């Protein structure tokens, strides 16, 4: 397939948008993922189904991808957008393309570090505008310099690699002996086991592993559609939570509930539009200028701008408020949206004359709550919700169904935006007590336990449909030739090799082997095994 300049430019732009801030805070959960990246690239290259299927396969490798505090293993834009484009343009089969994606993802991980470092400079620029009380400029600096930098950082390499890279890849593959190319395809089939293994390393508890096995067996022997397996997983989750007693015995600590609720009468009223404006800005731009020095500090201040302009009149007050919120801040932005809501409530009280709400009081509430909420938030949004919906989307996409990416984006967006809105408004309404109310309601633990059950079941099914490993070994005894795969292994348990590989990788990760080491082992086993004639397709 040839790629035109226009197509390469469009892919370069799409690569930027995939990592940009323009998708209501759910960009990181949706367009950033290879499932969506592959679909978009397929659309640009005129073969949406192929792109989607390749993107889905790539996404399986990154199923256990959890970024915390700006530390990112591999880059999903390079893996998803550039990987799909390169695979399609060079005309590679899915498995061979997968083996190229992992090095590509590693190549891109330097971009994140560069961006997090460079964005630190822009924050100081925002500081100087804050001193002058210029809220508009602070907001603009949160958005534009970081985003323009990101555009350059992603679009340029994406264009170069997509436009010129396919020839390089093709000539590389023709230069390499065919046996090794075959080996690369074998590696590609094995790699999704690394993604699943990483997710298991995060999710799995021995007592819940039967659900993983159940999902695997249902997929292998009943071959039920993905959506059906997901619903079975949901049913299993609800039953498990009911019958395991997770609901009734959720352990509440003995500490007394705090009774301090912010009084609503004293408030200098913010309008509904101010609140929505603040929430919307936080939702959309919390990571727009994400940087190592203050992480979401500038995003937090940007979110406060509608509140600050409503509550304060003099330049000094506005400047002080901006500076107050430009400090270091970092949380999981959706569950942690509650902190932004709490800060708005505190600002409102302060502006209404409560002198006990000092800078220190606001700052200590923010910095005290941001950590714990990030812990819960990351576990919930990145660790459970996203892999469950992704597995569903990947499963549908692999069957060539466009509902895969579409349903994924819809489910994920509604859930994440819903969480953000709910927690933000709770924070505004109740102040910091909202956090205790939210945590003590006793719903969180059963919810997470149930989600783990559902995740294990759908991931078990995904193991069956995605991980590929097969042996070509055969033994000739007299006149009879016994092929290990069809005559022995398949008769014991279909999918025994993929299942064993996945569990083995999980075990290696549990033994504290780094994901990179595991990937190197997979490459070595796949390439050498194929070269020796042990691995291969009958």
């Amino acid at each position, binding site marked *: 397939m040839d790629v035109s300049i226009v197509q390469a430019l469009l892919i370069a732009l799409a690569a930027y948008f995939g990592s940009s801030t323009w998708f209501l805070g759910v960009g990181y959960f949706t367009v950033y993922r290879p499932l969506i990246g592959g679909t978009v690239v397929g659309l640009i290259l005129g073969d949406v189904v192929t792109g989607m299927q390749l993107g889905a396969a790539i996404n399986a490798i990154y199923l256990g991808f*959890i970024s*915390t*505090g*700006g*530390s990112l*293993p591999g880059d999903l834009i390079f893996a998803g957008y550039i990987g799909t484009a390169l695979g399609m343009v060079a005309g590679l089969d899915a498995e061979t393309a997968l083996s190229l994606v992992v090095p590509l993802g590693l190549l891109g991980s330097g971009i994140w570090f560069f961006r*997090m470092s460079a964005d*630190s400079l822009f924050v100081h620029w925002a500081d100087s505008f804050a001193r002058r009380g210029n809220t508009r400029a602070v907001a603009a600096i949160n958005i534009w310099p970081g985003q323009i930098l990101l555009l350059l950082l992603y679009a340029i390499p994406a264009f170069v690699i997509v436009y010129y890279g396919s020839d390089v890849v093709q000539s590389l593959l023709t230069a390499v002996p065919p046996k090794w190319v075959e080996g690369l395809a074998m590696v590609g089939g094995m790699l999704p086991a690394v993604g699943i293994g990483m997710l298991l*390393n*995060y999710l799995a508890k021995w007592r819940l592993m039967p659900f993983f096995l159940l999902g695997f067996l249902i997929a292998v022997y009943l071959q039920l559609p993905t959506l059906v397996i997901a619903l079975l997983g949901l049913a299993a989750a609800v039953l498990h939570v009911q019958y395991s007693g997770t609901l009734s015995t*959720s*352990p509440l*600590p003995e*500490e*007394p509930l*705090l009774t*301090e609720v912010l009084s609503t009468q004293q408030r200098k009223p913010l309008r509904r539009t101010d609140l929505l404006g603040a929430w919307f800005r936080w939702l959309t731009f919390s990571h727009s200028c994400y940087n*190592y*020095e*203050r*992480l979401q500090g500038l995003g937090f201040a940007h979110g406060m701008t509608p509140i600050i302009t409503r509550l304060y009149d003099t330049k000094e007050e506005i400047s002080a408020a901006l500076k107050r919120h430009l*400090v*270091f801040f*970092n*949380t*999981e932005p959706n569950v942690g949206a509650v902190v932004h809501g709490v800060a708005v409530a505190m600002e409102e009280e302060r502006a209404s004359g409560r002198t006990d709400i000092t800078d220190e009081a606001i700052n200590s509430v923010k*910095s*005290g*709550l*941001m*950590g*714990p*909420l*990030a*812990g*819960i*938030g*990351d*576990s919930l949004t*990145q*660790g459970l919700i996203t892999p469950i919906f992704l597995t569903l989307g990947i499963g549908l996409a692999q069957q060539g169904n466009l509902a895969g990416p579409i349903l994924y984006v819809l489910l994920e967006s509604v859930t994440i935006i819903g969480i953000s809105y709910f927690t933000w408004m709770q924070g505004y309404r109740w102040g*910091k007590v909202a*956090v*205790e109310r939210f*945590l*003590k309601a006793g719903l969180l*633990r059963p919810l997470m336990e149930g989600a783990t059950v559902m995740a294990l079941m759908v991931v078990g099914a995904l193991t069956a449909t995605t991980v590929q490993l097969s042996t070509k070994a055969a033994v000739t005894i007299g006149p009879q030739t016994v092929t290990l795969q069809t005559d022995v292994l398949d008769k014991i348990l279909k999918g025994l090799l993929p299942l064993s590989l996945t569990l083995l990788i999980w075990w290696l990760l549990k033994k*504290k082997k*780094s*994901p990179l080491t595991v990937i190197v082992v997979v490459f070595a086993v796949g390439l050498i095994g194929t070269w020796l004639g042990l691995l291969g397709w009958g």
Partner: protein
Amino acid sequence: MTQVALVRIDDRLIHGQVVVKWLRHLECDEIWIVDDQLYGDDFMQSVLRLAAPPEVRVQVTPVCEATRRLEQPLNKGHSVMVLLKSPQAALALLDDGLQFEELNVGGLAAGAGTTRLYKSVSATDEHIAALRAIRNRGVRVYFQMVPEERPVEMAAVLPLKRLAHNVAVH
């Protein structure tokens, strides 16, 4: 004595990196937060307890009691992660006689008078002095946010930055 799997300086205490990555990596079932201010803050203690995974116990102790309590053989078979908000707290524990061979620096917020040392670790002069004192006692001090990241030794981070800071200040 309790098995201390990790002593970490991180002023965000229990957050994503700790819950999602370190706890699972080290398989710790107890977190000890050593901090005087938190010891007197019932609300934050309650939030921190609720924020940790259910199977992980969270204890908050003041600095002066930490060493004594960590040395008690009460928690046999448990694996503990000690979280501190500052290098000064780590130094105080050493002064009290608590022994640990390695100190992980995972996060210190930037603020007035800080220099950025490594990723999201920024430090004041007092922080740096405490870190140096800790290293001079033979403790390996290293910077590492999450387990899958390569640890960076203090020697690789501090001397150069320190020089730059001196030039800028004086």
